[in-house]
């Protein structure tokens, strides 16, 4: 409980207020609220189709919300110009569910790609090659630098995608189902890697997952997205011991 209190005393780096989004008659988000604090790992769980991915894409401006505000490091992204949004995106890393590596490029080119736009903003005096190798070394895949994504396993792809996310040294990392489609051992490796990254760079992480084990290991706080709203927020222990049937359903094995 004291750990949560410590987190809640830190700065808010990301805040969503009254977010609404619908596709035709399908109301996906119905006034969703959320806060992410500096250095915390917030896990969001929800059923398939509950709007988790829509919410996370609204956060980076990939989907435009119908109404509500999204504040990322004091910037309301719903009011930013495209130019300002692109600059802010350098501080937000996004790990996609299917890794989303550019399959016509080598691992090196994949990692160099975000630097094309943002290298000038990097405070370090390293050249591109050093930045690429450092990011790959962080995920233990320096030897894959000249391989094509098609030559990598699912777990390796996920780690390279994580390296691509890290190369700009973001302050916030958004993980969309980081362990989905991976075997339990590889999933565990990814979770450990996420923890290491969080410790090393003191990033704030928003993790969308269905994996209860992942949530248990990595979360400082959890949020359950049910019926388009932030139905429950609390630590893993609090939520897993809840008597509410909707909450209990998430923790049944």
């Amino acid at each position, binding site marked *: 409980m004291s750990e949560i209190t410590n987190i809640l005393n830190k700065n808010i780096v990301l805040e969503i207020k009254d977010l609404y989004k619908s596709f035709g008659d399908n109301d996906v988000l119905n006034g969703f609220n959320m806060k992410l604090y500096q250095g915390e790992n917030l896990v969001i769980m929800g059923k398939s189709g509950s709007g988790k991915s829509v919410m996370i894409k609204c956060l980076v401006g990939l989907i435009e919300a119908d109404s509500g505000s999204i504040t990322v490091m004091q910037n309301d992204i719903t009011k930013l110009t495209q130019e300002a949004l692109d*600059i802010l995106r350098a501080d937000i890393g996004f790990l*996609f569910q299917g890794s989303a590596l550019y399959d016509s490029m080598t691992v090196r080119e994949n990692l160099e790609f975000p630097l094309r736009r943002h290298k000038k903003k990097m405070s370090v005096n390293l050249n591109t090659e050093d930045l690429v190798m450092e990011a790959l070394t962080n995920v233990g895949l320096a030897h894959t630098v000249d391989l094509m994504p098609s030559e990598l396993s699912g777990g390796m792809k996920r780690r390279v995608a994580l390296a691509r996310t890290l190369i700009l040294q973001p302050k916030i990392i958004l993980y969309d189902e980081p362990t989905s489609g991976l075997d339990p051992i590889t999933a565990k490796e990814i979770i450990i890697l996420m923890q290491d990254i969080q410790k090393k760079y003191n990033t704030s992480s928003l993790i969308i997952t269905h994996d209860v084990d992942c949530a248990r290991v990595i979360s400082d706080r959890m949020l359950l997205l049910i019926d388009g709203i932030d139905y429950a927020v609390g630590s893993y222990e609090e939520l897993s011991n809840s008597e509410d049937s909707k909450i209990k359903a998430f923790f049944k094995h």
Partner: protein
Amino acid sequence: MLNISKMISQVNTFLIELGDLSYFTTRFFKESFKFPFETKELLRQCYNMGNRSLLLVGITCFIIGLVLDLQTRPTLMEFGAASWMPSMVSISIVREIGPIITALVCAGRIGSGIGAELGSMRVTEQIDAMEVSGTNPFKYLVVTRVLAVTLMLPLLVIIGDAIALFGSFLVENLKGNVSFTLYFNQVFEAIEFGDIFPATIKSFFFGLAIGIVGCYKGYYCAKGTEGVGKAANSAVVISSLLLFIIDFMAVFVTDIFYDL
């Protein structure tokens, strides 16, 4: 009654699609002139599209040249006009057959390739990843590809025309003992600036149509592997249809200029 409402719905869908395609085309022109220019990617696409289509265009045009000569020759011989073969074949190839055949081959080879590539990038969230990294995916993926096809198609047409004429020369040489110098002297006497210029302009528009349709279908591809297949397929079908419409318009406009 049901048929009428279905027809109205289809017309509605068609008009929406046409509007979206027009918006997409306008955006292409706007983004083309905005800094920064993706020169490296443009050159890579030019190389990919030009170089990789060359063999297919070459083989197709060579066969077209052979066939055109073989099929026309007996008719002209009946009228004792076999010596007109180089002139007739060259005008047919340069004005019409070369550009349209090359464009159709490219619609199949390049249009479907672009549709499938961008479609799979959309489905696997690679386009989203590009946007999140602060790169404008429209500029990087669409503008470079459309410009590359638009620039490469006229070049492919010129090369295709030359290969088709060579195919025709082979038939003339084997069947009529016509020498290389004689054949091509007659070809260059027959072809005028007024044949080459409209054909080249037309080829630019063919390239633009193939690029825009392929990119549009791929960029807005529906989710799933079925969506990728549909994007590739409709890119070929729509761009092939557009090629004939553009061709008709180009011939119509050229005729007006000839009449003046």
